[in-house]
Every structure is written in C-alpha cells, then in structure tokens.
C-alpha cells in the first residue's frame, strides 16, 4: 500500500517534470533574429516590461494586475497565432503543447501565490512562453510580408 502510494506520487511528479522539460526544450528554439519586438510594439503587449521589471529590479507587482496583463497578452498572442498570416488557421502541435503549458503555469502561479513560494520563477516562465509566441507570429508576418522577395526584387518587378 505504502509502496504503491510512493510510486503514485513519484510517477506523477516525474510526469509533470518531463512535461515541463519538454516544453522548455521547445521554448529554447533559436530564432534567426528577435521577431517579437515588432509584435510587442504593434500590439502594445506588456510582458517584456513585466519581465524586465522582475529581472532587473525584482519589483513587487500588484498581483491582480499582473494576472490581467499576462492573460491579455496570452489572449492577443493566441489569437494572432491562429489568425495572423496562418494559412491553415489552426495551431501547430508545439503551439498546442505550449498553450497547455501556459495554462498549467498560470494555475501554478495561483498556487505559488497562495503558498508564497517561487512566484517570480513562474512569472518568468509565463513570459518566456509569450515571447516564443510573439517570435513565431513575428516570423510568420515577416515571411508573408516579403515572401522570398528582397526589397530590390520587389522594386525591379514593379
């Protein structure tokens, strides 16, 4: 009985551990440049400033406002992921996985808030997911805008 309970606890913990590691490996993907900045500026997203304030100043943030900021950015970016320059108008498998990961981390943020442990870590993980989404949207928009044309190509064809 005790052995089974121990296996249950260990295996469940390992399942979530592997799920998190897989998501973080997907998030480590390198983009050829920082596409997210243009998307952040165009849509007035707030996660970069939130991350900067946490990383540099460790500033205490108003929790309801923080939740609202993250949620709004998440909704905007998932809408863009699905609809901006996306021919199939649906999420890819890794996007679905990361959406699930974001929701899980969002839930974990609420629990961490209650227990008052590792809140900052959870917020940084959430912002890294948002940055990944913004990078993907930025890369798509960039590719669609220019196709395989350079500016010179386009002007020559006019």
């Amino acid at each position, binding site marked *: 009985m005790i052995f089974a309970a121990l296996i249950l606890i260990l295996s469940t913990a390992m399942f979530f551990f592997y799920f998190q590691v*897989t998501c973080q490996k*997907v998030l480590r993907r390198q983009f050829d440049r920082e596409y997210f900045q243009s998307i952040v500026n165009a849509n007035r997203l707030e996660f970069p400033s939130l991350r900067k304030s946490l990383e540099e100043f460790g500033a205490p943030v108003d929790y309801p406002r923080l939740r609202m900021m993250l949620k709004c950015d998440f909704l905007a970016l998932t809408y863009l992921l699905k609809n901006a320059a996306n021919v199939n108008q649906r999420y*890819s498998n890794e996007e679905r996985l990361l959406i699930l990961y974001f929701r899980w981390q969002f839930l974990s943020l609420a629990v961490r808030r209650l227990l008052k442990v590792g809140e900052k870590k959870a917020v940084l993980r959430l912002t890294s997911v948002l940055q990944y989404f913004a990078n993907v949207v930025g890369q798509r928009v960039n*590719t*669609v805008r220019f196709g395989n044309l350079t500016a010179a190509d386009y002007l020559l064809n006019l």
Partner: protein
Amino acid sequence: MDSGIVSYGFQYGCILIEAGLIVFLAQRSYGSRFDSVLLYLSCLLAAGVARSYTLHRYGYHSAQYSYVYYTTDFLLVISLFVLVCLFFRRACLHQEKMWRFVRLFLAFTTVLVVGISGLSFSHNYSRLFLEFVTEFNQNLYFTCLVLNTLLYLLLQQIESTDDQLGLLVCGVGIQFAGPAATWALLHLTANERFAQSLNSLVMRLCTLGMVLVWAYAIVPVRGRAVVTRSKAAVLAEVTAHLNI
C-alpha cells in the same frame, strides 16, 4: 463523450503517427542514430495492429485478446528497456570509462528485476503465466522510469549537446511516468472501474505524447511555423495594396 471512444481515437492516432515516423526514418539515411527508435516504433506498431485485430476478431473479454495483450505488453516493455539501454550507449558514446560502469549497472538492474519477479512468482506458484507477466512488466516499467530519469540526469551532468537525445528521453519519460502512476492508482483503489478507464486512457495518451515528442525531435522542419508564399502572390498583393 464516452472515454472508450476517446481512448480508441488516441490508439488509432498513435498507429498512424507511428507508421508515418517509421516510413520517414526508413526513407532517410541517418546511419545508426535512430535504429533503436525505429526498432521500438516497429514493435509499437506491430503490437497496436495485433491488438486491434484481436479485439475486432475475438472481442474485449476473450482469452485470445487477453493473451495477445499481455504477450505484446511483455515484448514492448522488454524493447523499451533495450531502448533505454541504447540511449545510455548514445549518451556515453565519447565516454568509454563511464559506459563500462553504466553497462555493469544496467546488467545488475536486469538481474535484479528478473530476480524480484521470479521470487514473487515462486511464492505464488499456483498463479498463471499472465500474472507473472503482469508483475514482471510493472517491475520493469518502474525500473525503466527510474533509469530514464538517471539518463536525463546523466545528460545534464555531462552537459550533452545532443538536444535530439534530450527530447527522445523526455518522450520516453512521459511514456513511462503516466502509466506507472495509473498502475499505482489501480493498486490503491483495488481495480476500481474509474481507475481502470483512467489507466487505459492515460496509457494511450502518454504513448501518443511520446510519439509526438519524438516526431518533433526527429522530423526536421525548416523554419518551423513559417508560412511561405509564392513570389507572384506577394507581388500581386502588395501592388494591389499600393493601387488602393
């Protein structure tokens, strides 16, 4: 929605993705890098097809389905153990000294699992082969979960740059951890109906998860999530926009 239908959906989805990955790996020449993955995927596919055929032919409660299910499960767990051993070999490819130690450790683990299962079987000799197989499978499964976690820690320790192996190990970890947890739950709840259906669902979901993570690791997609359009289409769109 009926959990049985969802469960079968996952099962057939798995079979399709496994077949796709096998074809992909067979077409490309990756040397011996993915031989272990190819071997395990082939076993998984063969087991999936054999189980589906027996289920449709003889039904869920038949003795034939039961034998096919447990025999394929036995073969799958053995091949998973071989897969983890081969992943250890790949991780220690340039570290012969470490590999010698790991090899001994793996051999000791195998003897330990067979010994414990055999001991349990000899105490209850009246029990049938199927029960021995179930016990052996569960022991080896949990051992593989622990070994896989040790492999992950080893990769971190030696600061491996093989990201692909890292993802493959994570996939295997998902495949091990979910079912091990639900098996333990089955033990704790004395095979309650809810735990049984959860076990069946989680096993298929975890296999699907593993296959998808492997597909992500193996299939190279140039500029993932990039939409490309033809030169003419872009030109037409921009020109139309300028005319407006």
